[in-house]
């Protein structure tokens, strides 16, 4: 159906009955004198060539389109869960359990929590929002975008100092970061990356933020911190325990950050206002909070919904 315009465009060349213009426009005395011949003449072959080429392009496009169109997935009973991308592994596992148990299909929309928040504010048809930080959920809640009584903290995390697995660096404690042989430390940008915010809190709590600040390399997400560590761009970096699980074999925990050094790391989840499938959305949150859900989260390096 949508392929119609292309042949129509092409037909401009195709249907040509052979008008070829040869203008010898001589500007004698400023008068333009076009000399044209309406013939099937020697330039016809160039047109044929052009048609061939255009037809080839059209054929490629048509083939692509046909291939792409085949097997459009049918819509059924499903819910859409917007979740922080750091939760991907765990939530996908929980999602397949949910599919099995209820027959309702869970679709995920993974991204940075701040982006997901913007989408919900703009009216994206999301049923459940699982955020990596309290802040985004708080903002949505204060503006009435989520169902208040559905909000729960479903997981926690621990902040650790990680080093590359092949690194020889050993840290006795958190305070060892001030050692002179550690010249660069990766940290998520405290303003935009939740893990970075917690790390800054902890460093300030221990009174070494000012001292370390010149050595800190800001990253825009947890994955970038991980990459810096793996590629030896930095000696150490602040990431979550769940990130260490994710990149097991590449990075190792060198020291844990004391939990009391920063505010508790909590992942809130809630049903989004305007969800068209409230019971199914509620059931999904129930499953996340259930023993099964918590076990899966634990396997991916998260702590339970209780105290970390």
């Amino acid at each position, binding site marked *: 159906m*949508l*392929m119609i*315009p*292309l042949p129509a*465009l092409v037909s*401009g*060349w195709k249907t*040509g009955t052979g*008008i070829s*213009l040869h*203008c010898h*426009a001589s500007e004698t005395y400023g008068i*333009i004198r*076009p000399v*044209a011949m*309406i013939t099937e003449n020697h*330039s016809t072959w*160039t*047109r044929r*060539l*052009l048609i061939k*080429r*255009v037809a*080839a*392009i059209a054929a*490629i*496009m048509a083939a*692509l*389109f046909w*291939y*792409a*169109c*085949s*097997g459009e*997935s049918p819509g059924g009973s499903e819910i*859409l869960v*917007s979740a922080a*991308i*750091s939760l*991907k*592994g765990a939530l996908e596992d929980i999602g397949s359990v949910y599919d099995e148990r209820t027959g309702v299909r869970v*679709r*995920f*929309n*993974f*991204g940075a929590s701040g*982006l997901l928040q*913007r*989408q919900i*504010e*703009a*009216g*994206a*048809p*999301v049923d459940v929002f699982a955020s990596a930080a309290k802040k985004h959920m708080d903002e949505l809640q204060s503006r009435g975008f989520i169902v208040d009584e559905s909000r729960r903290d479903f997981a926690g995390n621990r902040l650790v100092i990680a080093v590359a697995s092949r690194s020889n660096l050993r840290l006795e404690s958190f305070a060892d970061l001030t050692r002179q042989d550690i010249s660069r430390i990766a940290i998520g940008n405290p303003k935009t990356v939740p893990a970075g915010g917690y790390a800054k809190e902890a460093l300030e709590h221990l009174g070494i933020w000012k001292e370390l600040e010149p050595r800190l390399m800001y990253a825009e*997400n947890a*994955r970038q911190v*991980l990459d810096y560590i793996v590629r030896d761009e930095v000696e150490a970096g602040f990431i979550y325990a769940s990130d260490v699980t*994710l*990149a097991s074999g590449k990075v190792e925990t060198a020291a844990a950050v004391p939990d009391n050094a920063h505010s508790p790391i909590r992942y809130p989840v809630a049903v989004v206002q305007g969800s068209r499938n409230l019971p199914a959305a509620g059931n999904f949150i129930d499953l996340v909070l259930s023993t099964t859900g918590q076990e899966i989260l634990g396997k991916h390096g998260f702590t339970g919904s209780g105290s970390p």
Partner: protein
Amino acid sequence: MIAEALKLSLLVVSIATIVIALAGTFLGFLLARYRFRGKDLLDAVLTLPMVLPPTVTGYYLILLLGRRGLLGEPLYALTGWSVTFTWVAAVIASTVVAIPLMIKSARASLESVDPEYEIASKVMGKGELETFFRVTLPLAGRGIIAGVILSFARAFGEFGATLMVAGNIPGKTQTMPLAIYEAVASGEDEQAKWLALILTGISITVVYMTNRLSRPVKRY
């Protein structure tokens, strides 16, 4: 995941490219041949998606098309359907981001067509439309095809604006670049590598093949 993302990317990009080819050529023609009030402003606005970070373009689009958006709200009130988070939104995002390439290249190649040929055609009694399709367009053909290829390639790689308005839903709105982002962010390095290789392979093949197809046609 790979097959689904590839399929969706091809669907989105085929439709976007067709829209871009038609609308871009029309807009390029408008800018090349006519003078009107606000032309420079229109040109600037149409170039904007090329210079703005795609996330910003996406942000504007979501303000425009969201269920509470300028256009999205009346649409939702009327039909109960919202364009955000559908593959249509992905088409719109790639179209908007890639169309400046088409407009620029169509405009430049249309401007390079000597108006005397068009005058000659009209002197011979051919109408505007026929002159455009039989004289102007074939003469500007190479530039137009180049524009189509470039915008195809750009649309194929579109990420930022798409993530914003279409979301990142596997099997529904997750195109190749989004699948790569997700695979990288969640540590699925093997999958990320394959996705990236396929994306690169298709892009190179398309650009290379069409470059060959659109080699200069000898005219006389």
